[in-house]
């Protein structure tokens, strides 16, 4: 019981800040974790319009028929071989949007992922940073790491000459 109350308080603090209207009702008890909530309502690094965006690598996975699509655009610092920008758009459910946003955040942290790190990013790493996902939703984040890997491979194929 005590443990349960503690969780309640922690999640309330982490989600309470930016919830607009209804944090009073559901802030402490949403369908996904507080981290998913944050990245779904306040997604980071979206590329609203790719016109004029000079990507070094582009990745696309999924299909509208399956209900999930993600596009990833990356810019590479060719000297350090690190990702210096990572943008995305996605068609999908809340956890798909959140995992794309989290993936982009992870790709840019600590001076940017190395290409090797980006290529080998595991879905489990994204899921952990999202505070977990329901089992049946694992495929959503599998998608965003694949899109990042596709973008890196695309960079190797077409731009890294």
């Amino acid at each position, binding site marked *: 019981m005590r443990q349960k109350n503690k969780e309640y308080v922690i999640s309330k603090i982490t989600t309470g800040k930016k*919830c*607009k*209207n*209804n944090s*009073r*009702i*559901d802030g402490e008890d949403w*369908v996904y974790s507080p981290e998913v909530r944050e990245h*779904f*309502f306040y*997604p980071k690094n*979206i590329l*609203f319009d790719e016109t004029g965006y000079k990507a070094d690598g582009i990745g*696309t996975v*999924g299909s*509208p*028929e*399956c*209900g999930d*699509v*993600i*596009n990833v655009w990356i810019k590479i610092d060719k000297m350090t071989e690190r990702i210096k920008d990572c943008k995305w*758009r*996605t*068609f*999908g*459910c*809340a*956890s*798909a*949007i959140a995992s794309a946003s989290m993936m982009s955040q992870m790709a840019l942290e600590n001076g940017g992922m190395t290409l090797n790190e980006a290529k080998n990013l595991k879905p489990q790493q994204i899921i952990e940073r999202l505070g977990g996902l329901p089992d*049946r*939703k694992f495929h959503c984040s599998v998608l965003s790491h694949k899109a990042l890997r596709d973008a890196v491979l695309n960079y190797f194929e077409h731009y890294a000459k």
Partner: protein
Amino acid sequence: MGYGKRVYLDNASTTPIAQDVLDKMFSYLKEVYGNPSSLHKEGRTAKKAVQKSRSNIASIIGCDTDEIIFTSGGTESDNLALIGLAEANRHKGKHIITSSIEHKAVLDSCKELEKRGFEVTYLGVDGDGLVSAENLESNLKKDTILVSIMYANNEIGSIQPIKKISKILKQSKTANPIFHSDACQACGALPIKVNDLGVDALTISSSKIYGPKGVGCVYISNRVKTAPIILGGGQEKGIRSGTENVASIVGFSKALSIANEKMEKMSVQQTKLRDYFISEIMKNITDVSVNGGIVYRLPNNINLSIKGVEGESLVLMLDDLGIACSTGSACSSIDLNPSHVLINIGVPLELAHCSVRFTIGRYTRKSDIDYALNQLIDCVRKIRSMSSVK
């Protein structure tokens, strides 16, 4: 809009309880605690309450009092109608006809019956979500013992030609099967006199008509035999054992009376709101399609697909803004498949994932619709701006 404002547009899922129903139930919850099967005064008082409710419901749907079986709700009523009627009549034949867009409570009962050796025909529907009575007739076999076609669909609100089907079944020279209809969604919006409809069994749920949850009934004509699916103390003529849920039954009865009184007024009011909502959405949002037909449709049902806007995302975003609605998207379902109803009326997979359902209720005002409309326009803009599907 104010802090915590909620606009509830998911009345097909369940309805809020009416104040008059709640008021009526309180004293039964508190004071009428006897077991209706008991001989003493407490028991007799409880039994009287159940019987009074039963006879009220019977008079509303136009049947004999002992033709009403109380259950735990729509799902159990459907299970009992399908499995109970099929099992009790299996000596007459093993063929059952239903539609492909029934509620899972019917479809999964049919799957169970297939395991038990019955043969089930699942009729397709047209793009409007309607069963063809002629198609049904041509699928009748000599050993067809049961037909179950819902009165109105829960997802797209399509209203089935129940009277036409019952007429065909009565005149058929091939078979004269028992006819069951799930009226969970229709009740409160459409007439439900069983003799006018020509049905032998009818499912009604309390939780869709502003009554308490966990209670409902199935009308089963005395002309047909039913086997129980819940065994025990022999309540409800031995068809449904278990101590009666007295206060809920009283509440259900009250809710049905109110729903019946308000039916015509509500139909007019909700049709107006529905048509206004749809026309405003069409004016303000591009690439929207209405799922299902508009002519034979429940007054409260709006089901749309908004291209590039995945349903679960939209529902959660609207929820955060105070609007409750639902989706047929795969992401929101337990089995990760998009709605079988949308697929069966021919909605492409891509658009099935983008479906959203708003269902108007008794307490919905035009200002609620306007609020929902404005928030919907904003949410669609926001989700489309980050969507891969343009």
